[in-house]
């Protein structure tokens, strides 16, 4: 039995307009970390808010623990949510913030202290219990929000971009901490983000959404290596997958597979490649330019290399892509299709 399940879940905000969420079917697995990934406006937050009970679906069903919860208020769904802003209660101390769900759900009073201390120690904020939220740093606030969520031992955690308010440095450590936290408590977690790095790093599975439609639901490696369509192919990866229209198909290949011909083994497709820009990113180089001839002629193509010191701006080199790294998409549906033999000339 899935912890959270949705069946053709749809949300239309304005009648006659395209839905913010369109007929989404998904099933979480016990204890997994599921990431909703998509650009802003893709409907990922709306989908999460419907699961939380903060938004009423236009149609479709939401099941939590096998029970349809469409009609239940948030408090009756056994969920916990961490908001993007953390939504801590500013007038209450950290202790009272964490104890609030216990009070609201009428947990016996003599258990409060023990439970709050348990949640606080789990997140290492035992020393902050007397502080007010405004006296805390961003990272500490996030931990308080997590403690407030865990204290009632919910069936599912819903996290709405909880790292986006932290600065870049803190974000990496907070991400690691969140992963460790999830491993320790093992509660099924749904995590919303627009950051593909977070999605890839944390997710057991990733649900890629765009314009309210599910494009793919798979493990991070699957989503990256075998994208279901051109949207997933270009949304994930930086720079994105190179795409080329060849007669009746779209062919794609990742920048890291597009390399100087000398370092490519086996069957490959070769191009004359004119280098137009070189970016040095420390551990890698991003080279962009245009193939000099063939169907790809004039189209911008990216290459990701460990070293580009042999290349110079304006020079033309022999580059190649291994045949097995080519992905094929239908030209009209943009969906993934079986590999084909195509003419590059």
């Amino acid at each position, binding site marked *: 039995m899935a912890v959270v399940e949705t069946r053709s879940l749809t949300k239309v905000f304005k009648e006659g307009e395209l839905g913010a969420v369109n007929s989404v079917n998904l099933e979480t697995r016990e204890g997994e970390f599921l990431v909703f990934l998509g650009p802003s406006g893709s409907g990922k937050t709306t989908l999460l808010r419907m699961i*939380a009970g903060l938004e009423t679906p236009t149609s479709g069903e939401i099941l939590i623990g096998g029970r349809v919860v469409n009609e239940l208020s*948030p*408090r009756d769904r056994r969920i916990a*949510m961490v*908001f993007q802003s953390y*939504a801590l*209660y500013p007038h209450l101390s950290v202790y009272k913030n964490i104890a*609030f769900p216990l009070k609201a759900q009428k947990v016996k009073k003599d258990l409060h202290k023990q439970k709050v201390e348990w949640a606080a120690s789990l997140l290492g904020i035992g020393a902050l219990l007397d502080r007010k939220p405004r006296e805390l740093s961003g990272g500490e606030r996030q931990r308080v929000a997590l403690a407030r969520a865990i204290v009632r031992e919910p069936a599912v955690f819903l996290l709405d971009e909880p790292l986006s308010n932290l600065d870049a440095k803190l974000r990496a450590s907070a991400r690691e901490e969140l992963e460790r936290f999830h491993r320790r408590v093992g509660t099924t977690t749904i995590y919303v983000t627009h950051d593909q790095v977070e999605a890839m790093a944390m997710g057991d599975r990733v649900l890629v959404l765009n314009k309210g439609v599910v494009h793919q639901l798979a493990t991070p490696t699957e989503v990256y290596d075998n994208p279901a369509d051109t949207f997933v192919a270009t949304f994930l990866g930086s720079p994105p997958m190179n795409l080329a229209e060849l007669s009746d198909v779209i062919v794609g290949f990742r920048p890291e597979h597009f390399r100087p011909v000398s370092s490519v083994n086996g069957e490959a497709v070769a191009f004359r490649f004119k280098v137009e820009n070189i970016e040095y990113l420390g551990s890698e180089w991003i080279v962009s330019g245009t193939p000099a001839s063939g169907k790809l002629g004039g189209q911008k193509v990216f290459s990701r290399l460990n070293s580009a010191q042999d290349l110079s701006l304006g020079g033309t080199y022999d580059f190649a892509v291994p045949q097995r790294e080519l992905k094929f998409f239908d030209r009209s549906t943009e969906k993934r299709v079986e590999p084909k033999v195509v003419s590059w000339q």
Partner: protein
Amino acid sequence: MAIARAKIKSVGAAQSPLLGAAMFTPAVLYILLLVAGPFFLAIFYAFSDARIGNTEMHYVGLENFRSILKSPSFRIAIRNSFIFTICSQIVVIVGANILAIALEKTFRGRGFIRFLILLPWVAPIALGAIGWKWILDSIYSVISWVLVALHFYKPFNAPMWLGEPHLAIASVLLVHSWRLMPFSTVILLAGRTAIPKDIPEAAAVDGAGFWRTQFQIIIPMMRPILSVAVLFGLIFTFTDMTVVYILTAGGPFDSTQTLPSLAFAMGIQGSDLAAGAAISLFLVPLLIIIAYFMLRVAHRAEVN
């Protein structure tokens, strides 16, 4: 560009003492002439035997205060001032909270309803009070007419809203509440909209129902703005004499007198300037306390 800006700045700096003073003067004049002047005059009169139409004046020490404290009307006025101020604030805060919650939701015609609710505040207080005087009139009262039509009372036997002491007190209280409600509603509505939507949503997910969310989260978060509404309301009601003056003129038998209306009745209508001044001075201690709390709220808002 930078040089030009620096020049303008230096010119501005050279002018600023004069310019500052010029901008400041009207406010200072206003306070000196219309607040400080009458205030010190009142203190001066309160220790004299000044009367309207009499140019002679003598120092009488605490005589005025002694006689006022003995007067039963004064004790009633003090009691009424507190009853009207405190009770109307309770009614207003409860009512304004309910209205603010209702007006926060979006519904058709919300703009019009908001306008209607604001109307008592926008209209001159005297007009409103005259309207109520008719509504509560002993013969032409629409309320009485409705009650008679519904057979609650026999014709000509309906209550005299402004003619019986207890009903008159209740009536004045009602009009004060009606008058202040819009002001508090607007302030509380602003306070509510300033609370991020996440907070009540988090409370809902945490398992709090409507009442718990209101009383443990929203209203405590609005405490600063709530105290602004209450403090202003206290001052408006405590110092107001228009409502009492128009509705009952302090009657029947001085049962609805307040400090300001009694001061007016004694000092201006009764020609005993000294007594009127002394009575009005009794407003000062409470107003100082309120002013202190207002400054504290303002200071806190600045600090945060």
